[in-house]
């Protein structure tokens, strides 16, 4: 399975437990790395789930360094957390970190391992993110998460598809 958008995002599932996202960015590798792993920069692109606000964002991209993000809602603070640890890092080349999402109550929603790889492609930088889940069920769940939550985007897609049928 491969889906390509006009912006160049490619999503593939090379194995039963992985999702690979690949995209190029019009900036040098050094800046892409900084944007991905510096808390002040991360706050700018890590879009919160609908209705949530990011409260904490910590990221130390060194082996053993921690990743910690938290979101609050009107009802709860935190309502959701993301915690992980960097296990392999080669500056500007690649970084691997664990990642566990949990509810404010502490109940785990899911965990995965993320590997970010960066490569020069002429004047642009190619970044790939490989997400490895514990099982095929978890992987499929992540891919279909919007579906289960009945997100509006999904409705619109369905509307369009159903429109084609009728």
């Amino acid at each position, binding site marked *: *399975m491969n*889906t390509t*958008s006009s*912006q160049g*995002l490619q*999503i593939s599932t090379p194995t039963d437990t992985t*999702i690979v*996202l690949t*995209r190029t*960015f*019009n*900036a040098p590798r050094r*800046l*892409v790395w*900084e*944007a*991905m792993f510096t808390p002040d*920069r991360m706050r*700018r*692109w*890590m*879009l919160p789930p609908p209705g949530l606000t990011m409260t904490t964002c910590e990221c130390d991209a060194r082996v053993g360094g921690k990743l910690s993000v938290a979101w609050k809602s009107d009802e709860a603070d935190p309502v959701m957390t993301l915690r992980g640890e960097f296990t392999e890092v080669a500056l500007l080349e690649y970084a691997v970190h664990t990642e566990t999402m949990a509810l404010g109550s502490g109940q785990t929603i899911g965990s995965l391992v993320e590997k970010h790889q960066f490569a020069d492609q002429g004047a642009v930088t190619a970044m790939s993110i490989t997400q490895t889940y514990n099982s095929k*069920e978890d992987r*499929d769940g*992540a*891919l*279909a*998460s*919007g*579906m*289960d*939550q*009945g*997100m*509006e*985007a*999904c*409705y619109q*897609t*369905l*509307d369009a*598809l*159903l429109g*084609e*049928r009728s």
Partner: protein
Amino acid sequence: MVLDRSPRLDLVFHALAHPARRAIIRQLTGGERNLSELAAPLKMTFPAATKHVRVLEHAKLIRRRVEGRQHFCRLEATPLKEATLWTESFRQHWEAQFEALDSLLDEMKSEERARPRRS
């Protein structure tokens, strides 16, 4: 929240809201299958699998034809390319983040141009 959804869409969403039924659809993307072939990987009883098939049939996502004692199912909704549909909101979420990243990177490049780094 959109409340005036068509009943057909409600049926489709209800039908797709169960992992077993999504698994059936996934199997059917490989072509026509009979009921036992569909039931086997679901690790559920034949009647339970049949129930899920009926829900999909009711939503008009699959069509069933009977040949002797065999019931064959095939995907009815060809435009519902399951992979595209399932990954759509996942993809949109990431694409939105990457577009934000594009803008951020543009700003970072401007910052650098305004304040050249000393080497």
